[in-house]
């Protein structure tokens, strides 16, 4: 039982990373960026090639993947979303799905369909025991650590840097922020860079601890969206709590209930929450009220 919970918590950390990248982009810019599923895949590939081709150690490779994905995020924002600013959520969703399809199939064309795993140093292949109760592969413990560091860095960035403050201003009221001279294009670029870097880190650590291939992004970004909805869109704390909650629920369902209909539970919960409590479990405002407010 403890083992099952621990696995859930670790999967939850990955879900939470993805959910945060979705939620900051949606919370700040109102863009439902499902293309992050593709960024997730590209992050895994970037780290993989940094280790195998360039011979970098694992941690610099993860950082490099994050940086590369930040650049990719800026490009995606410029190409696909800049012209759609102020367009409907539906239009942005269509563009995001387009980006997801392009990135996934681009990865397939460039690097093939085989399932790979990022090679990790031997010290990380051992199993850590916690008081004889719980045994976890070191890689999975590392996921937890990397995710926590990423959450911390994000918090510091958004809380104390100048551009972080600008992001929060845009999230609260884009029109007022613009009137006060907040450079909206730079904020958009920075937000996409930040969100994409988080998704890239998630991809890299999944690729190192488990396996990855070109099509793993679509489902994981949808799972992440379930988390975001559970936590309330735009709420970072909600995304973290929701991530761990869904990770544990998933793990428990898989072990004790059914492995055959494993997505059914997650997506069933999603539909129920959206229909019954559209603002999410931790959300501050109802999306319907929000929608009416924006006409």
């Amino acid at each position, binding site marked *: 039982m403890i083992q099952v919970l621990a696995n859930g918590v670790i999967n939850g950390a990955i879900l939470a990373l993805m959910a945060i990248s979705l939620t900051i982009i949606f919370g700040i810019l109102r863009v439902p960026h499902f293309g992050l599923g593709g960024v997730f895949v590209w992050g895994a590939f970037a780290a993989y090639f940094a280790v195998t081709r360039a011979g970098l150690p694992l941690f610099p490779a993860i950082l490099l993947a994050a940086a590369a994905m930040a650049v990719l995020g800026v490009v995606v924002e410029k190409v696909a979303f800049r012209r759609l600013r102020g367009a409907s959520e539906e239009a942005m969703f269509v563009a995001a799905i387009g*980006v997801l*399809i392009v990135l996934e199939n681009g990865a*397939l064309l460039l690097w093939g369909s085989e399932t790979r795993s990022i090679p990790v140093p031997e010290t990380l292949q051992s199993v850590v025991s916690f008081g004889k109760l719980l045994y976890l592969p070191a890689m999975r413990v590392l996921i937890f650590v990397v995710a926590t560091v990423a959450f911390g860095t994000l918090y510091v960035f958004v809380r104390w840097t100048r551009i972080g403050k600008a992001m929060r201003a845009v999230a609260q009221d884009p029109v007022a922020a613009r009137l006060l001279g907040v450079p909206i294009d730079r904020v958009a670029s920075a937000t996409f860079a930040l969100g994409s870097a988080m998704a890239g880190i998630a991809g890299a650590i999944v690729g190192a601890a488990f396996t990855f291939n070109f099509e793993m992004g679509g489902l994981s970004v949808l799972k992440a*969206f379930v988390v975001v909805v559970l936590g309330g869109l735009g709420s970072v704390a909600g995304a973290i709590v929701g991530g761990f909650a869904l990770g544990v629920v998933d793990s428990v369902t898989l072990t004790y209930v059914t492995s055959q209909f494993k997505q059914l539970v997650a*997506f069933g919960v999603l539909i129920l929450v*959206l*229909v019954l409590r559209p603002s999410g479990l931790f959300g501050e405002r109802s999306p319907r009220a929000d929608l009416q407010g924006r006409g």
Partner: protein
Amino acid sequence: MRRALGVVLGGGAAVALPLVAGDGYLTHLAISVLVFSMLASSLNLLMGYAGLVSIAHAAFFGIGGYASAILALKHGVPFWGALALAPLVTAVVALGIGLPSFRTRGIYYIIVTVAFQLIASEVFDNWYAMTGGGLGLRGVPRPGPVPFLPGVRFDTAPAYYYLVLVIAASVQALMAAIVRSPLGRTLMAVRDNETKALMLGLKPLGPKTLAFVVASAIAGLAGSLYVHYLQYANPEFFTFAVSVDVFLAVILGGVGTVWGPPFGVLVLEVVREVLHETVALRLLLFGVLLVVLIVFLPQGVLPPLARLARRLLPARASAARR
């Protein structure tokens, strides 16, 4: 005048096609285009007129297909009975999922449809007792003799093509009629400005529900036609990717135009044939197309093409159109 010419030319080509192509590949493609144009047109009723952006159309396509296959294979219902019952089953499911989903708006509504699509796919894939799981259901029968019309048979590909052609044409006619009807007007008023429509005393829930159920039933009907033609039902026919394909066809042809979505299906089918060896490249192209269309050409390609045609043929342009 020009419109009549288009109908005569298009209709003539559609009727003559199997006479030229016979039992061959072209007839097979044409059946598939017709089935998918039914899907695209019914999705357009939701996206273009009811303002409901749905990525779950392949799920309803599949529910109809599986319902029909199961009725025929496990309960011995003849083709014509299954064809009539499949849309009914789909409509009931649509009513069940549609009503609660209307509580959500915008991106949340889309996500509900995506989640429903994924749940449906998982059920198709895993409910072995009913759907045969990943193996699917084989041996779905082709149409038997038509009731009251002995001697008329639809069991060859060209004959089946005519059956599908008549049904698809009826669907197009139904769409054109709905758009002109009070139902269509109400839907468009709600789509354009829900608050204003409410103030005018329009009640959106009934029309929205009706549109959703009708669109889903048409998707179910298309599913039934599809599996009885292929004599096979498989989860792969009804995936999220298929939903996105239909969605792209609607956007490509023109959201909220009666003839745009079938046109979009036709264009995408041609692209699919040209690039049939490199699926990844085709999908990449479709992804680029989604972004380019939504950014630069959100009204689709048919309206600008029609404007261009009118400019090139000014003498006939004064004749009644639309």
